[in-house]
């Protein structure tokens, strides 16, 4: 999303946009819709802990009913994700239905289904944008996080899109400790395929909670990233995800506001509506689109959303000179790292978050876990030996009885 505000449209004394948005909008600007928890990959940092499909996922008809509501609410476009949305057999039907009903679609994919034929079809639809996920500018860095072969899959998809004439699709990168040195390489890769680079923040959400401590950019890297973003301005998209870095000085392009429940929200595969895509937890659950009132009812009536639209006080941060620019940072990042919601972001550029992180219990007790986990269970979770102690049966008079012993009275002892 690129935001422009016509200069001169408000008197100098008028309210700032961010102050207006604090009270919420009649409909979200930016709605994320995870269509399925099924995924062919098992990325270590998956926000939605995806892997297996949930049997309760919205049917094709239910998905279309949601689109009808979005059209009526004039939601301009949805960001469709997952899981891997294209593995749903009705994905293309849902996409065509949305664009025919004036709801633009930007979908995130690892590229697995972007064949030359699909790429041509996507390039022909003005109302569709594609976002290819890649978290390393080299196979080595990417595949360590996203799994073997995922780099090649993503690059093949980009080549197919470029060959089909698709312009300005997005190359979407989650910034980690390992890829911060690759920013120029990512930009070159995006340019090579006529794509636009989009950088987002690593969140401690979903499986990301388990790897965040080791993968989130170091303090020096945050500064490096901020300088890189400032140097590249609006040519690089960020989904407004680095507003906590604005406290370094100049504000980054975008709203610089936590939009949870005010301008953004998430619909998950089973129709649950959460305040933001990074907060799949009961604490941030506003309702479900299947209930009477549908999505519009949740957006307009939810008690949680009403609360999020109240003016927030800065809590521990209100005395900080930078509170007005960073607004205390990301709610989900604080929540899943176990920090108080009215305190500093874990990556606070003043270092206040680090101090709090250091005080957490080493064994992570008390840290919230995501409410749903759809990770695949195809491999045993235990990798070490199973500890057993061999003992003698306490009663040697009593012979072992198998389940298929023929005598129905086997093992019966009358005393």
């Amino acid at each position, binding site marked *: *999303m*690129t*935001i*422009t*505000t*016509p*200069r*001169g*449209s*408000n*008197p100098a004394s*008028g*309210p700032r*946009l961010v102050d*207006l948005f604090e009270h919420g*909008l*009649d*409909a979200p*600007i930016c709605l994320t819709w995870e269509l399925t928890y099924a995924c062919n990959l098992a990325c270590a940092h998956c926000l939605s802990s995806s892997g297996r499909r949930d049997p309760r996922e919205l049917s094709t008809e239910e998905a279309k009913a949601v689109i009808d509501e979005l059209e009526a609410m*004039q939601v*301009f*476009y949805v960001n469709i994700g997952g899981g891997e949305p294209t593995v749903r057999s009705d994905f293309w039907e849902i996409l065509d239905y949305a664009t025919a009903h*004036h709801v*633009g679609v930007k979908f995130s994919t690892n590229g697995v289904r972007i064949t030359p034929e699909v790429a041509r079809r996507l390039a022909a639809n*003005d*109302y569709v*944008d594609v976002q290819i996920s890649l978290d390393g500018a080299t196979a080595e860095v990417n595949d360590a996080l996203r799994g073997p072969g995922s780099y090649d899959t993503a690059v093949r998809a980009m080549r197919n899109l470029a060959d089909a004439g698709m312009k*300005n699709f997005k190359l979407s990168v989650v910034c980690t400790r390992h890829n911060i040195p690759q920013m120029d390489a990512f930009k070159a890769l995006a340019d090579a395929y006529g794509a636009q680079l989009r950088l987002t923040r690593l969140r401690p959400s979903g499986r990301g909670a388990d790897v965040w401590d080791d993968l989130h950019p170091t303090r020096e890297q945050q500064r490096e990233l901020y300088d890189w973003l400032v140097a590249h301005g609006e040519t690089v998209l960020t989904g407004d995800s680095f507003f906590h870095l604005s406290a370094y000085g100049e504000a980054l392009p975008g709203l610089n506001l936590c939009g949870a429940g005010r301008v953004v929200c998430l619909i998950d595969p089973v129709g649950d509506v959460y305040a933001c895509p990074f907060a799949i937890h009961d604490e941030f659950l506003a309702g479900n689109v299947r209930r009477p009132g549908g999505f519009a009812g949740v957006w307009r009536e939810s008690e949680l959303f009403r609360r999020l639209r109240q003016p927030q006080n800065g809590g521990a941060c209100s005395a900080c000179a930078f509170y007005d620019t960073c607004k205390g940072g990301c709610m989900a990042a604080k929540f899943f790292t176990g920090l108080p919601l009215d305190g500093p972001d874990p990556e606070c550029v003043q270092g206040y978050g680090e101090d709090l992180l250091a005080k957490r219990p080493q064994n992570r007790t008390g840290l919230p876990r995501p409410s749903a986990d759809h990770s695949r269970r195809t491999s045993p979770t235990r990798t070490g030996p199973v500890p057993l102690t061999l003992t003698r049966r306490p009663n040697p008079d009593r012979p072992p009885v198998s389940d298929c012993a023929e005598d129905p009275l086997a093992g019966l002892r009358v005393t």
Partner: protein
Amino acid sequence: MSAIDIDRAWDLHPQVSVRPEPFGALLYHFGTRKLSFLKDRRLLAVVQSLKDAPTARAACTAAGVPAPDLARYGAALTALARSSMVVERTP
């Protein structure tokens, strides 16, 4: 781009969708995928009157823009034209 000529006819780009909000409106251009905000309801009225007005100046008058404010609204329209939200209407 210098200031637009408000004595010519203008209109919203056909790929632009307008969503009124309590503070003004949201504009979304499906072609450029850009979002823009109108921070006041009167500017929304101006933008909505462009289609049927012979000139942008007439659209401002129809929306009740007082004469001293014309330059400011002209500047806002120029900004919208720069991002292709508003385009010159050709007969």
